Structures are given as C-alpha cells and as structure tokens.
C-alpha cells in the first residue's frame, strides 16, 4: 500500500466540503420570545473576575498584616510606657507611692488622654517638672481599695490625694506620712496624768 500524505489544499478541500449546518426555522421566533419575556438566565449577571481567587488571599494577607502591625505597635507602645514608668517611679509592685515633701506644692495638674502629668514646684528648686506617664491600662491596674483595706504593717498613715484635672478626689495615689502614733498617745497620756496629779 502506497502511503500518500495529505497536502494543505486537500485538507482545506475536506474542511470546506463539510456541509453547512443551519439554525432551525424557529430560531428567530424563539429568540425574540426569550427577549420579550426577559428570559436571560445567567447571561444578565456580570461575569466574575478571573482574578478574584488571586485578590482574595492577597486581600486577606494585607488585612492580617495590618491587624498584626496594629497589635505589635500597640504592644511596643505599652512596653515603652512600662519602661519609662519603672525608671521614674520607684515603688512596690502593685502600688505607686508618690512622696511629696511638705515644702513642695502641686501647682499644676494636667490630664491628657490616659496619662497624668503633675507639675511640682519646689521652694529650693526653681521648677522641677515630673513628666511621668501613669498609664491607666486595665492590664496594669490594681485594686487600690482592696490594698488600702489591708492593715499597713509599718503603721504609716496614708492620705489620699486627687489626681488629674478632676475636682473629685480619685483614690489612685497615697502619700506616706511618718507619724509615730504610739509616741503621741504616750505623750497625751502623760500630760493627762500630770494634770490629774496637779488637780489633786
């Protein structure tokens, strides 16, 4: 059997010799009926973008990166405040003591957002500014009321001072005063005893 390859022209003749398929007679009628009745099916809907499956994960990554950034940024801010606080304020772990000498007077108080700034004027010093950030972060908050209810071991009296621009006293800070109660009581008792002796 002799093998003969099909030439381009022969192939073209074969393809062009294919019978022409025609649309059915009622094609136009059906089409116009469909249009009149607005039976468009899914064709009326907007086609989905080919790139939606690319946009979705990238969008998710951007949003999660933004959330991560926001969380990290917030944490670093808290850390810096915490470091600042430990440098400027010396005290116990859960209560902040601000010792105010008698000759000092608080001349100005400001409250900006969550930070409290207290300006103290000292008689010896011209002006000293304590710009310590005392954050009101729920995480670092302690129950001062609970703490104050406990008996103070060294028998120091405590006086509450107000803070911020509020006129109402806020029980946030405690000043320490070293009053020797027992000595004072002994003095009073001795005076009373002396008076009694005199009157007798």
């Amino acid at each position, binding site marked *: *059997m*002799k*093998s*003969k*390859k*099909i030439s*381009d022209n*022969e*192939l*073209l003749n*074969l*393809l*062009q*010799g*294919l*019978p*022409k*398929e*025609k*649309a*059915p007679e009622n*094609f*136009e009628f*059906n*089409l*116009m009926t*469909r*249009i009149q009745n607005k039976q*468009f*099916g899914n*064709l*009326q809907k907007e086609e989905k973008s080919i790139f939606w499956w690319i946009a979705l994960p990238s969008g998710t990554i951007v949003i999660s990166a933004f959330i991560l950034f926001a969380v990290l940024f917030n944490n670093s801010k808290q850390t810096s405040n915490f470091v600042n606080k430990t440098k400027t304020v010396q005290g116990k772990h859960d209560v902040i003591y601000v010792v105010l000498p008698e000759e000092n007077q608080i001349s100005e108080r400001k409250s900006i957002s969550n930070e409290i700034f207290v300006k103290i004027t000292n008689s010896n010093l011209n002006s000293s500014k304590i710009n310590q950030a005392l954050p009101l972060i729920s995480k670092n908050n302690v129950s001062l009321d609970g703490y104050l209810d406990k008996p103070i071991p060294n028998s120091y009296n405590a006086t509450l001072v107000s803070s911020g621009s509020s006129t109402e006293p806020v029980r946030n800070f405690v000043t320490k005063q070293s009053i020797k109660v027992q000595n004072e009581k002994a003095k009073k008792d001795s005076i009373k005893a002396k008076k009694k002796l005199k009157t007798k």
Partner: protein
Amino acid sequence: MLNLDYKILSDEVLIKDFQENDNLDAYQELVRRYKDPLTNFVYRFIGDKELAVDIVQDTMVKFYLKKNSYQTIAKFSTWLYTIATNLARNEYKRKRRRTFLSLNNDDSEIPLQVEDEKILSPERETDNSFIAEEVQKALLRVKPVYREMVILRDIEGFSYEEIAEMKKTSLGTVKSRINRGRNHLKIMLQKYYEK
C-alpha cells in the same frame, strides 16, 4: 416586517442603529445574517447540534444585552464570534467535565476510533456524508485551542489578523496554532488517503 433598506446596510451601521435607537429591526437583521454561520461554527467546535443552537441563542441574547460593549473600531463579525467562541468554550469545558473524556486535556493522544476498512462497503466509503462525519470526528479530537482556530480560518474563512483580534493573541501564535491543528488533522485523516 423588516424594512428592505436594512438588507443593504453594513453590519456596523446596523449595530450603531441598534445601539443608539434601540432599533429591534436592525438587531433582527443582524441575527438573520449571523445565525447560520454561527450555528455551523459552534457545531463544528462542539459536535452537538442542539447544544450549538442553544449556544448561538445565548450569543444573540448576550449581543442584545451587551450591545454597548461593542466599539466601532472593531469589525462586528469579529466581536460576535468572540462572544460565541467564549460561550462555546465554556460549554465545551462543562461538557468535558460531565463526560469525563480525559483528565490531562490532551485530545491528540486519544486514538481515532476508525471502523474496520474491510467491513465498509465501497458505496459508503465514497459517501460524502460519511467523509464529513469522519472529518468532524477528527476535528473533535484536535485540541480545542487549535481546533477553534482551524475552524475559524479554514471553514469560516476569517483572516489571520481577524482571528488574532478575536483571540487577543499575536499573529504568530495564530499561524502556529492553525498549523499545529492542521497537522493533527492530517495525521488523523491519513487513513482515508492511503489508497
């Protein structure tokens, strides 16, 4: 009834009339002109007459709905065939998924199922409809990406440039795909020429 003047107007004038004046007569004239060539094209690509008619209906509905997406810089036939090609390709993919012909999307590797030569009567071998049937079978075994271009070029008679515009590809790609498609067809139809 259609106005007789519509029959002598060009496609581009008719589509402009339909776009600007919502003239259904102009639309109907365009439908009348393209329903048969489109049906033939989609049938050759899909191989199913009923499905081909449905796809052409959808093409015409889409043409009706998206008439304003046509711009006068392009040829109307190119634009309409682009719609039909996209719909046909989508339907073909759906059909393939349903019938599960192949998983690797390489039709050229599927051997052509040819009837035994010995059992064919001489009358049938020379029968035009039989040859047409075999050519159609061979066409359906060519990769869709080559097949659509061979049909557009060799059956529908579009130029390489028009096909490149339709498929949004370069002229070189079109020529190369058509050449590959033709070569696949030649290999599959060789059996009928070995005489």
